[in-house]
């Protein structure tokens, strides 16, 4: 089995606890700032994802770690050592490129052995390591093929093997599964997870696919417009987003813009711009995390309610809190659940998701009631 290089120690002789550290890193291209003061620490052996929409600076951030870009300001550290002055070819990291960037003039074996040959490793040793890693990615039988003779999934495994064989301290993955079809992507997600568990290597993945990030990562950094908006476990990111952007970007949500009408220790009342009164329970559900800005009377907020947290009723429910009347305007059967679109009496539309087999069909245009518990809603500072 492959093993990562032995841990380095930093200047003070302590064993470096983080494999990658970014300290207030900025990157400016021709006057355009792609990365604005990004800071994070990636723990040894962690599967860390950088998630964000296209153009948010996530790939640039990865390239700063890989050494393909040098920071305009700030510091990048790998295993406790500053690598600001270290070119890509002397960094203990390897990258799986989105396009794979395989060497078409070499067969699979030579592609995978490329890094080891540069290190002037003995032939027999290269042969052994290459065989080992090809077995790991299940490509033993295709070792003498050329990249152009492989399918997309096989090429992606070659790219993975070519990086892994060097036993990097950190494996960087740039949208690794972006070019694969859905079924293959699911399978490779599973294989990436098991590779990560088996190798214990630090993985840093860039993706725009929130589902992929949620299912694979130990921690996720959500980026938007060159900044990191939140770093946390998939559960934290999903259940307790810190900003309206994240609530909207990760999964589906219903957002209501408004301002705080009443605030006390345990609850908030928010009046939406459309005039709805929304009750929110403050507490562990994440509505106000320790470092979130204080929400007081008058604060501008966005209230987020996940579609699956909303109940749909044909008759008025017992409670009147967070209960609104509306009209069903759309129903979509999505396999494991049904997604309804409800138009509230004030014109706003709401997405509601209910598990169901589609048996309880409701005619479009029917008057319905929606409600949700105050603990399911989140107030996010604007």
């Amino acid at each position: 089995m492959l093993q990562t290089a032995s841990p380095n120690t930093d200047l003070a002789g302590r064993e470096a606890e983080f494999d990658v550290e970014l300290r207030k890193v900025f990157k400016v291209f021709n006057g355009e700032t792609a990365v604005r003061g990004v800071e994070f620490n990636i723990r040894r052996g962690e599967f860390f994802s950088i998630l964000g929409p296209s153009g948010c600076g996530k790939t640039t951030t990865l390239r700063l770690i890989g050494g393909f870009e040098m920071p305009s300001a700030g510091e990048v550290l790998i295993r406790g050592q500053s690598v600001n002055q270290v070119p890509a070819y002397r960094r203990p990291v390897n990258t799986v490129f989105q396009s794979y960037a395989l060497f078409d003039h070499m067969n699979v074996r030579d592609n995978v052995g490329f890094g080891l040959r540069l290190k002037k490793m003995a032939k027999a040793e290269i042969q052994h390591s290459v065989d080992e890693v090809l077995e790991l990615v299940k490509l033993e039988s295709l070792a003498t093929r050329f990249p152009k003779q492989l399918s997309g999934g096989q090429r992606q495994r070659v790219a993975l093997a070519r990086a892994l064989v060097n036993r990097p301290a950190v494996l960087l993955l740039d949208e690794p599964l972006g070019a694969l079809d859905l079924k293959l992507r699911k399978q490779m997600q599973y294989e990436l997870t098991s590779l990560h568990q088996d190798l214990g290597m630090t993985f840093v993945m860039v993706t725009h696919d929130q589902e992929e990030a949620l299912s694979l990562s130990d921690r996720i950094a959500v980026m938007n417009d060159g900044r990191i908006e939140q770093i946390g476990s998939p559960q934290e990111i999903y259940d307790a987003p810190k900003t309206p952007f994240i609530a909207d970007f990760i999964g589906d949500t219903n957002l209501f813009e408004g301002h705080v009408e009443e605030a006390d220790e345990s609850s908030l009342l928010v009046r939406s711009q459309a005039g709805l009164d929304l009750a929110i329970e403050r507490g562990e559900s994440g509505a106000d995390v320790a470092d979130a800005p204080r929400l007081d009377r008058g604060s501008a907020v966005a209230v987020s309610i996940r579609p699956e947290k909303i109940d749909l009723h044909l008759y008025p429910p017992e409670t009147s809190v967070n209960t609104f009347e509306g009209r069903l305007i759309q129903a979509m059967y999505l396999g494991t659940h049904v997604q309804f679109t409800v138009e509230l009496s004030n014109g706003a539309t709401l997405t509601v998701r209910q598990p169901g087999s589609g048996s309880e069909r409701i005619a479009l245009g029917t008057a319905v009631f929606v409600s949700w518990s105050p603990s399911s809603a989140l107030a996010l500072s604007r």
Partner: protein
Amino acid sequence: MTQSETSLPETPERAEDRADDLPSDELPAMSRPFKLKLSWQAGFTIAMFAFMYLPILVLTAYSLNASPYSANWEGFTWEWYGRLLQDRRVFSALRNSLTVATSSVGISAVLGTLMAVGLARYHFPGKRLFLGVSYLPLIVPDIAIAVATLVFLAAIGFPLSLWTIVAAHVVFCLAYVAIVVSTRLADLDQNLEEAALDLGATPVQAFVQVLLPQLIPGIVSGCLLAFVLSMDDFLISSFTAGAGATTLPMEIFSRIRTGVRPDINALSVVLISASALLAFIAEYWRYRSDSKQ
């Protein structure tokens, strides 16, 4: 059969695929009696090929004609080809032409490749202007290049020789090599060099071991194109040639001024065949490297 199919090694599943892929209507179509029906498109195509290649066929026929002067067929002979082989002036002109072509193509191969890579990788002010100017020799008429080069060489008092032809040929060969290599470069994965750096290659190693091998097909076909054009050039060569630096086209031209002779016909046929062979090799090379990789 498509190119991609031929390039894949046979595996059992693939063979099966192929059997399934057979269009079901193909068999009845094949059993239908074959009828020769000339469509107007086919007629037009034949007329066009005749227009292009009939003169060459006539030339070939004359080169094998025993009659030295008349256009009448007086029997088959290899005599003119035999005479050609003993003609010292033709061989000296051929040697000059080859020297010019190989030198100018050699210089252009190196400079053109570096230029294409540099233009693809670096952004600098005035890049578009530089690009336009470097491809200008492809558009500017040969006579303009010829006159300009001659006037320039005369102005600085540089003595004309075989090497002034080389210098003038580099001007257009460079543009051809650069444009073909640029096209190949644009088809390559943008991250190739970075992938090599990532795996520990120094920038020089990345260029030599990864980028260059992938560019070779482009460099070779660009060089062959430039080689043929250099061998073929009459105008620029005759303006920039020094005393005694006679290239093959110049030799042919000086001979036909005294009337077309059968040995010139033979020489022309040899030249056409050699060019065709070179073009075939170039195409085959490109086809093979495309299908293997």
